[in-house]
């Protein structure tokens, strides 16, 4: 490949990447812009990126009208719990499935794949009745259980891949050096698996943080409702929306996920590099 062709390819790649980033960022930037616009600017035929008269009224109104902080607290509790519990359950299962391949492991993998095919609406009534019998309707504990069960198959699938990526030879080497099974797992496997565990926890967190339908159906009282459910309260009949406060509330709802990604992304990358060096 000539140098000129190489540069052209590189330029094309950067162009594509820039286009992709703009595509991804557009909705979020527009959301921010809308959140700070007064009502009259929202009705403008020629909307601007930068609000001409930026205001915090939408945020004030959103907080006045709906219990956003309480809902955010509920969402956070549900999402963090789902993430932690999901990882605690999935990690040992994934290790077994990855290291001890057999019919049972294959069947488990098959179940994981099939379980992703069930739509929410198919599950919601039986799930509702089961949780009702367990007195877990209108309870964040019930919702967390649902989120864990819902995220578990995919989390398991993700973690199996991460475990398989850790060379079994490393564990054998540790064993030769005299480390016991547990010591090997804790000192050798776990650090290499850490990025995968974090990514899986993050996946379960985001799934629970964004989830709407189960929360809508299972939580009845306003004190228990999560953010996605409360956000719908800004939407009226026939799709009419209180756009400013809705954008303000939606912007606040995206912040935790963004911050978490920004914080953890570096660690995932760092962990991956560490694993690469060790192997």
């Amino acid at each position, binding site marked *: 490949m000539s140098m000129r062709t190489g540069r052209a390819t590189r330029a094309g790649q950067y162009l594509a990447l820039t286009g992709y980033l703009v595509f991804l960022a557009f909705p979020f930037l527009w959301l921010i812009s809308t959140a700070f616009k007064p*009502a*009259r600017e*929202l*009705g*403008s*035929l*020629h*909307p601007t990126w930068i609000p001409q008269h930026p205001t915090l009224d939408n945020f004030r*109104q959103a907080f*006045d*009208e*709906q219990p956003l902080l309480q809902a955010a607290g509920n969402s956070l*509790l549900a999402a963090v*719990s789902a993430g*932690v*519990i999901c990882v*605690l359950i999935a990690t040992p299962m994934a290790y077994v499935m990855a290291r001890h391949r057999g019919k049972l492991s294959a069947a488990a993998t098959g179940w994981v794949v099939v379980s992703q095919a069930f739509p929410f609406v198919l599950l*919601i*009534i039986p799930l*509702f*009745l089961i949780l*009702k019998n367990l*007195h*877990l*309707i*209108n*309870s*964040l*504990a*019930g919702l*967390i259980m649902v989120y864990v069960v819902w995220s578990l198959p995919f989390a398991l699938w993700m973690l199996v891949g991460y475990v398989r990526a850790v060379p079994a030879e490393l564990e054998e080497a540790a064993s030769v050096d005299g480390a016991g099974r*547990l010591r090997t797992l*804790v000192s050798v496997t776990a650090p290499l698996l850490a990025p995968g565990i974090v990514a899986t926890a993050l996946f379960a967190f985001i799934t629970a943080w964004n989830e709407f*339908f189960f929360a*809508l*159906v299972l939580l*009845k*009282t*306003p004190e*228990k*409702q999560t953010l996605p*459910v*409360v956000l*719908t*309260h*800004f*939407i*009226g*009949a*026939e*799709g*009419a*929306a*209180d*756009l400013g406060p809705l954008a303000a509330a939606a912007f606040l709802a995206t912040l935790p996920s963004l911050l978490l990604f920004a914080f953890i992304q570096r660690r995932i990358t760092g962990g991956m590099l560490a694993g690469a060096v060790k192997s």
Partner: protein
Amino acid sequence: MRALTRAAASAATALTLLLAGCSGGGSDGRDADGPVHLRFQSLAWQTESVDANKELVAEWNAAHPDVQVEYVQGSWDSVHDQLLTSFEGDEAPDIIHDASDDLADFAYGGYLADLRTLLPERLTEDIPEASWSTATFDGGVYGVPFLQEPKVLIANTKILKASGVRIPTADRPWSWEEFRQVTKELTGKGRYGVAWPLKEPVSVTLNLGLSAGGQLFHRGEDGKVDLRFDDGDSVVPRTIHDQVTVDHSAARTALGMGGSDTLPGFFGGKYAMVPLGFAYRQQVVEQAPEGFEWSVLPAPAGSDGTAQGVSPQTLSVAEDSPHKKEAVEFIDFLLDPPNMVRLAKGDWMLPTGTEALADPALHTEDKGWATGTALAQRLRPAPAQSVRGYPEWKDKVATPALQEYYSGAIGLDELRKRLVDDGNRVLARYQR
């Protein structure tokens, strides 16, 4: 090893405590002794409306220590699914706010209480028969209709006055033919006479079609419904179709829009008029630029005058509620005429109650209230709301057929064929 075991045990304990701590139990909020607790799920969403509802609940609770009502916020966006699962799980709120066109399945399913023997005479007599019929299914009354909104034309006053066209009033509305002529006159460079937001074309077409005698759904003596597309049924669709595809006086791009989407174009002078629900005035007030002059005009009239179909907002009581009597007493309080006026103003809609409708506050020219109240007498039940199978017909048959017709992809004969032939096949499955 011991440390790890201890850590695992601690984690398990912490999780158990966490789950126990955030469990709300399955209490339905009703005490065996002491005050009765009722849950009122409201769909109010605009600030003034939420405030009005919460204030009324607080006033009730202060005056009725033995019957305490809890305000629960619901959402129009998801109310059907949410109620359905609540009913199935015996967790429905005692008092349910919804729209009459959403009640049929719940009423036939036995989830809602028949209110006939529970309603006080005052309330029964205050609300006109036409409104009651929107919540009456198989002879039972399953909701109290309390707010309704006609479709009106929101017009750019300056453009209208400058054009010299006759300004319609509730007494002398435009005919559909005159409306078509007016929109042609209002159309100019970079401007359409009207923008029809027809993202959901079916209810608009059917409800406005009543003005021209269109009914489409005909119930026979055996109670079965069949579809017929008579001359009256074609007036409204043909007018819209011709405005879009023949006269080019209606914006084609608006056909895929919701009501709110048309407002920026309306404020920007791109559309001279927009047919919208009466409650959209609130958004116009909030979003219109300084100095923007707008007015509310009645929708065009046909052979049946300004008749329109509506699906009023309703208050129902869950069949499983152990406190139906108290729930109806609360509804009666909420719909006491002065309170009904507060709710109507909060939602920018019209009350169904005769006494509330007579309130002078709803007859001012300001923000078009008087035009709306003048139309109230002619509001009728939406033609199809009690027809079983209507939702499927609407989604699978009527919506795509009307969208294609309005965009000019098919003609009136094809529209008629699809609405009637395909539609009757759908209805037949529900009426075996």
